[in-house]
Each structure stands twice: as structure tokens, then as C-alpha cells.
């Protein structure tokens, strides 16, 4: 054999080796794809799948940017009790139980028993804890056994997203609930389309040995869109005040429920909305949106609306004499009584309103709207003012007001308009409205007759950009002519000054309003039940907010002026300082300039008002602030040198100049901001010009 053949054989040997190897691979390929194909193709589905990914839900904010609702993650923690090896489990179970007991209650023994029994039963999905925060989740994952991870320690943590309301109970019913097992409520429902993120199908894959799903790379992929944020009109400072003032009264009166709504007069924006009801444990919680959803007979707070209609139809003026018959009168065999039998036989309509006389209102309505033609006029006037319509607030579930209709012929007593209907309607019975609907008319009176649509959401913001701005809407530009509105305002003011609300006066500010005490369930026997209410606006002369307070079924005192009135008064008292008054802002420079002057003068003033300051021996000073107290810095005045006059008043400036032997030419008023000769120079000329502003 020559070397060439030998080489060739070797090469062929290697070559055939390669070919054999290639054939083997080919054979395996065929085997995998044809013989075992089914099995592996089924396997593929396990590691790649289309998953529905939902973008994060938007947040809800107050008008000042406080967070009212947001999504935060929570975790359910499970343990696979079978996975940990015998040695690991037995050596560390005590330590784990101790750690659990230390942080999450129960005794170490209880934890241990629970886990050991779970292991014995072969539980691969033992529930350890539910709904814990990220911090707690991280803590638990660091405990013995569990810190070995999912594959060795059996730690399983399922992440879920929940809605968190930082203000807890405050306006929580209005903010609403986002839940999947029942219908959403509140703003979460009304604005769900904006709040919810885009849902999209995404191809996700799982790599062997890792347990989270990752999106399969896709160049066109847009990360799933976050939902838009909602900015409400709610002001949490006002909400806080209204909530706690109502809560206090609810506690002391043991009422069944209560609601407060505070509205901005000019716009109809709702600044606060409180809805409290008693739950099974006797606590007051936001359990139902009473303000929007519960209609009931409003009682005396409706007298304003009745008065508007009667003034509009010229059935009465403020000075009309009305017969009161001592506070008791019978209409068609049905007796009407005032809250107290007062014995007064005659009063003007204004006085009737002040004392909230049912008989007086009933008499005016009875005389004004006689027989079916009259009833129709009353009905049409009320309808014309929009009283029978919903307010149209965004929240789902607003109730339609209930009114009887004189045009309808029915035998149903509950619906039929009869002789007693108008007199009873005039003091708020035989009709039903929600607190918000009643409030809207007080707001309209405060707003000089313009009826606004109450609203809760002012802006929808997406990725920092305002995508929709919701403007105030006018429902009725003029519910009655200006003279009628002025009369109505006078009525409400006189209630607060001389009438049923006279004991609620507030120092330094004024309000106008109407008390209401409504007998409820009067067709039942047993103890008398009442709803106490108060509606009004403030400050009386230039109304900024209107508000209604309704306390349902209080125990003990039940008069509107005793139960609901104080809530209203306290709200007025505490909010009136919050109005954003426009303070003329001096620009910074002039503001700073005001702090220069004669030391003794400053000391006098500061001693008088009792403020701390650090003394200076200098005659002329600049006043500066430090973190502890006011500090006086020496102002240099040297003989023969032009002084720095900046910040001095005219009197001080001329005094300084004259003491240096100079003459001042003055321009303007206020404090010196400019001088013709710059400070620090030698005095060469006697005259100097100073500019003041």
C-alpha cells in the first residue's frame, strides 16, 4: 500500500463516520417529527400560548391631585408542601413556624401543625396567606424553606391587582368599586371605558426551568395601554370636613343613615359627597349612595321649590297675609299640623316660610291651585322648572323624582292627584326626590336662577395629556324670573336670621338655608320616625357653596335644626376659611423691600405682636428670616458715603439722607427701589433722586 491509498482510506473512514453521524441525526429527526410528533406538538402548547394581557387600570384623582383610587398588587401565597426534601423540611419547619408566628399571628405550634398535616396529606397547594402586600410577600419569601424558591422550597406566590382607596371610607361609594364578580358601581362604573386599559392577545412563551411567561418578541409590539386617569371635582379637604362632621352627628344620634353633598354654586361641581349607613357591626360605612339613589319625601326643604312655583305663578308675595289657624287646619277631612301648635292666627308669607309653617304653605297652595285646572298649573310650573327630571349626574342609579300627575286619571290612591295633593306637596309630601335633586334647586337659587348639572368628573387624562375636559353644563338658564329668585334668596336668608335656623348662626360668615323635618313611615303604627335635613348655601351675600345634609331616622332629637343643622353649620364654619380668596400678590422684590427700616420701629412692632427676633445694635436694619426667628442685619450708613436706600419708606429715606446732609428729590410712592447715585460712592453732590413704588 502506498501512502496515497493509506491516506485515502483514512479520509474515507472519517468521511463515512460523518455520514453515519448525519444519518443518525436524520433518523432522529424523522423519528421525532413523525413517530413522537404528536407528543411534542402537544408539549409546545404548554410553553407557548396566547394570553390575554390587560393594561393597568387608570387612577382616580381629586381636583387637587390627591389619589382617590389606584391599582396596587397583592399576593396570595401558597406552599407546595410535597416538594421540599425530607431533610430540608424537618430541619427548618420549626424556624419557619417561628418566623410566621412572629409576623403574622397564631402560635408557632399552630403553624407547625398546620404545615406538617398538610405535608402528610400530600397538599401541593396549601394556602398560607391571602391578599398580602408586596412587602409581606417579600418577607415571607425570605423565611426558611420558602427561601429555597419554588422548585426546592415550594414557595408559590400568585400576584393579583386590587383597587386601593387611600382615603378609605371617604366618598368610597362615589368613587365606586371595580369588581369582576358583580356589577361595578360609582365612578368606576361610569368611567370604566376610560379607566380600563386595553386588553390584547399576546403570544407568551415560557422557557424551561423558569416559571414566568414572557412575551414572544414581536417588532410591532406596543406595550399594552394603560387606562386613562380620571380627575374628579371632589376636594378632599372639604370631603374630610363633611365626612367627619356628619359622622359625629350620626354617632350621637344613632341614625340609620345620612348624607351630605357640597356643591360649587357657579358650576355645579360636587366638592364633597358623603353617604353613611350603619352596617351589621354597628359601624358607619359608605354602603349606598343615598344622595344619588335614595328618593324620599323631602319634607320642609321642598318648601323652597314650592315657594318658587307659587311666587312664579303670582299666587303669593312675601307680604301676603296667610291664615295659620293656630297651626292646625283640615283639608278635605285630612288634618295638617305645624311642628308646634303655636296659636298664631295670621302671618305674612315670609314669616310662614321662616317658621316653616305647614298650614301656611298648605293654605297658599290650596287657595292658589284650586280644582283640576289649578292643579295642572302647579304641576306644569314645577315641570317647567325641571323638578321632575333627574339631575343627570354621571353615577349610575340616580332615581327619577316621583310626582303625581293631575293629567292622569287613575284610581290608585298613591298616584291620584286629589284635593289634598297640592297642600301636602307644598310642604314636601306626596312627592319623592333624592337629596341631590333637592340641593340642585338651592344651588340654582344661590346661582341667581341658573340651574346647573351636578357633576363629578372634570378631566380625563391620558399619559399626562388631558384628552377630555368636562365643562359645567346649564340645565335651565332661568328657572324663574330674577325678582322671584331675589324673593327666594330673601326667604332663605331670613330663615337663617330669624327663622328655624336662627340658633345656627356662624361668627364671621353668613349662610342661607332651610330646615326640614320629615315624618317617615307615617302610615305605620308604632314610634314616630323622622328624617332630619338642612339645605342651604353660603356665604349668603356671595354664595360659593351650596350643601344639603340629610340624617335618616335619628334617635332622640329629630328636628332638622337640631340634627342636620349643626352639621351644616360646622361645615360652613370650617370651609369658609378655605375659599380661595384672591390675595393681591406683591412681586417678590417689593415684598422683600418692605423689610428694611428703622430698628427701633421694628422692635416695637414685633414686641407688640409677640414675635421672636434676634436683636441688632444697629440703627438701620434689613429684616431677614431664618428657620428659628427673624434676624436683623445691619444696614451700613456711613458718613460721607451715599447709603443704600433700597427698601426704605419715604420717611426713613429722607431722614437718613438729611442726617447725611443730602437733599432728596422724590418720584412715586411706596418704598425706594432705585436711586440716582449708586450706594457706596463718596458724597460729591448734595442732591439725589429716589424712585419709589
Amino acid at each position: 500500500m502506498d501512502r496515497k491509498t493509506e491516506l485515502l482510506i483514512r479520509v474515507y473512514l472519517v468521511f463515512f463516520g460523518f455520514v453515519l453521524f448525519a444519518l443518525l441525526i436524520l433518523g432522529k429527526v424523522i423519528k421525532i417529527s413523525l413517530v413522537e410528533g404528536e407528543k411534542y406538538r402537544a408539549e409546545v402548547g404548554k410553553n407557548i400560548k396566547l394570553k390575554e394581557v390587560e393594561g393597568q387600570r387608570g387612577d382616580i384623582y381629586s381636583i387637587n391631585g390627591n389619589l382617590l383610587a389606584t391599582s396596587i398588587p397583592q399576593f396570595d401565597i401558597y406552599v407546595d408542601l410535597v416538594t421540599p426534601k425530607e431533610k430540608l423540611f424537618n430541619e427548618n419547619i420549626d424556624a419557619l413556624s417561628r418566623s410566621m408566628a412572629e409576623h403574622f399571628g397564631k402560635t408557632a405550634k399552630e403553624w407547625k401543625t398546620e404545615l406538617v398535616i398538610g405535608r402528610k396529606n400530600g397538599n401541593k397547594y396549601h394556602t398560607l396567606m391571602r391578599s398580602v402586600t408586596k412587602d409581606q410577600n417579600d418577607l415571607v419569601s425570605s423565611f426558611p424553606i420558602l427561601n429555597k424558591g419554588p422548585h426546592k422550597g415550594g414557595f408559590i406566590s400568585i400576584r393579583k391587582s386590587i383597587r386601593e382607596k387611600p382615603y378609605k371610607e371617604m366618598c368610597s361609594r362615589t368613587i365606586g368599586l371595580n369588581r369582576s364578580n358583580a356589577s361595578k358601581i360609582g365612578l368606576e362604573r361610569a368611567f370604566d371605558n376610560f379607566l380600563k386599559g386595553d386588553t390584547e392577545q399576546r403570544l407568551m412563551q415560557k422557557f424551561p426551568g423558569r416559571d414566568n411567561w414572557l412575551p414572544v418578541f414581536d417588532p410591532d409590539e406596543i406595550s399594552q395601554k394603560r387606562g386613562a386617569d380620571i380627575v374628579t371635582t371632589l376636594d378632599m379637604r372639604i370631603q374630610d370636613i363633611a365626612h367627619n362632621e356628619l359622622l359625629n352627628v350620626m354617632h350621637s344620634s344613632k341614625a340609620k343613615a345620612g348624607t351630605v353633598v357640597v356643591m360649587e354654586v357657579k358650576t355645579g361641581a360636587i366638592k364633597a359627597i358623603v353617604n353613611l349607613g350603619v352596617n351589621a357591626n354597628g359601624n358607619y360605612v359608605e354602603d349606598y349612595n343615598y344622595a344619588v339613589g335614595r328618593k324620599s319625601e323631602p319634607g320642609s326643604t321642598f318648601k323652597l321649590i314650592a315657594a318658587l312655583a307659587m311666587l312664579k305663578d303670582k299666587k303669593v308675595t312675601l307680604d301676603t297675609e296667610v291664615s295659620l289657624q293656630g297651626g292646625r287646619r283640615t283639608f278635605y277631612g285630612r288634618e295638617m299640623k305645624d311642628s308646634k301648635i303655636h296659636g298664631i292666627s295670621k302671618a305674612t308669607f315670609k314669616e310662614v316660610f321662616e317658621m316653616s309653617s305647614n298650614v301656611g304653605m298648605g293654605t297658599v297652595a290650596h287657595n292658589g291651585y284650586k280644582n283640576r285646572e289649578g292643579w295642572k298649573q302647579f304641576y306644569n310650573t314645577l315641570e317647567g322648572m325641571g323638578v321632575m327630571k333627574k339631575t343627570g349626574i354621571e353615577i349610575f342609579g340616580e332615581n327619577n323624582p316621583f310626582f303625581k300627575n293631575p293629567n292622569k286619571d287613575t284610581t290608585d290612591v298613591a298616584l291620584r292627584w286629589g284635593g289634598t295633593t297640592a297642600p301636602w306637596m307644598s310642604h314636601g309630601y306626596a312627592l319623592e326626590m333624592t337629596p341631590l335633586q333637592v340641593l340642585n334647586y338651592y344651588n340654582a337659587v344661590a346661582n341667581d336662577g341658573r340651574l346647573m348639572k351636578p357633576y363629578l368628573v372634570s378631566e380625563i387624562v391620558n399619559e399626562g395629556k388631558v384628552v377630555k375636559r368636562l365643562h359645567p353644563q346649564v340645565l335651565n338658564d332661568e328657572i324663574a324670573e330674577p325678582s322671584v329668585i331675589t324673593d327666594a334668596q330673601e326667604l332663605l336668608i331670613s330663615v337663617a336670621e330669624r327663622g328655624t335656623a336662627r340658633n345656627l348662626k356662624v361668627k364671621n360668615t353668613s349662610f342661607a338655608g332651610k330646615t326640614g323635618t320629615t315624618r317617615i313611615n307615617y302610615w305605620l303604627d308604632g314610634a314616630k320616625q323622622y328624617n332630619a335635613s338642612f339645605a342651604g348655601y353660603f356665604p349668603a351675600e356671595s354664595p360659593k357653596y351650596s350643601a344639603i345634609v340629610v340624617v335618616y331616622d335619628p334617635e332622640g332629637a329629630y328636628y332638622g335644626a337640631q340634627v342636620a343643622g349643626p352639621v351644616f353649620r360646622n361645615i360652613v364654619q370650617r370651609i369658609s376659611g378655605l375659599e380661595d380668596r384672591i390675595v393681591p400678590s406683591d412681586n417678590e422684590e417689593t415684598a422683600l423691600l418692605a423689610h428694611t427700616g428703622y430698628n427701633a420701629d421694628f422692635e416695637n412692632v414685633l414686641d407688640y405682636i409677640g414675635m421672636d427676633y434676634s436683636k441688632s445694635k444697629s440703627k438701620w436694619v434689613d429684616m431677614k428670616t431664618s428657620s428659628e426667628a427673624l434676624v436683623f442685619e445691619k444696614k451700613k450708613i456711613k458718613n460721607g458715603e451715599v447709603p443704600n436706600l433700597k427698601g426704605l419708606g419715604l420717611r426713613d429715606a429722607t431722614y437718613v439722607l438729611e442726617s447725611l446732609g443730602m437733599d432728596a428729590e422724590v418720584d412715586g410712592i411706596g418704598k425706594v427701589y432705585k436711586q440716582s447715585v449708586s450706594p457706596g460712592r463718596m458724597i460729591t453732590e448734595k442732591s439725589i433722586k429716589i424712585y419709589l413704588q
Partner: protein
Amino acid sequence: MRIVSKYIGLILLLSALGVVYIANSHQAERKMYKIEKLKKSVADAKSQCQTVKSEMTYKCTESQLAKRLESQGLKINSQSPIIIDSERS
């Protein structure tokens, strides 16, 4: 044989490219994994911040502050403020 030796350069290039391709996709996969992990931790940090913030907003409400400061003798002013109006001359 001759074919093999003729195209040996190309074959080597292709296999080199193959190696680069595999390494690259592996690299990319690892990066994606890391990105996803970081995204998650950013989201977690954000939500943690949110939780703390929301706790703080609640504690900063007037009523909560009033409750906490009661022991120190501070309480909410029951009088509405006196507003001083002045006309600047």
C-alpha cells in the same frame, strides 16, 4: 471530496455564522428576560411607592391629624377665620 475542499471556506463561514446566530438569539433571549424582570421590579417599586403615598395622604387628612394631635392639646379651630379686607391706597 473536491467539492468539499472547494467550498470549505463557505462552509466554515456558514458554520461560524450559525454559531453567531445561535449565540445572538440566546443573548437576546437573556436580555428580554432581564428586561421583563426589571420592568416588573419597576412596577413593584412604583406600587410600593403608591402604597406608602396613599397611607401618607390618609394620615395627612385634617381629621387624622387632629386625632393624633389631640393628646398634645391641639385641636381644630371651631371658629371661621376673620378675614381682613383692606383697600390699598
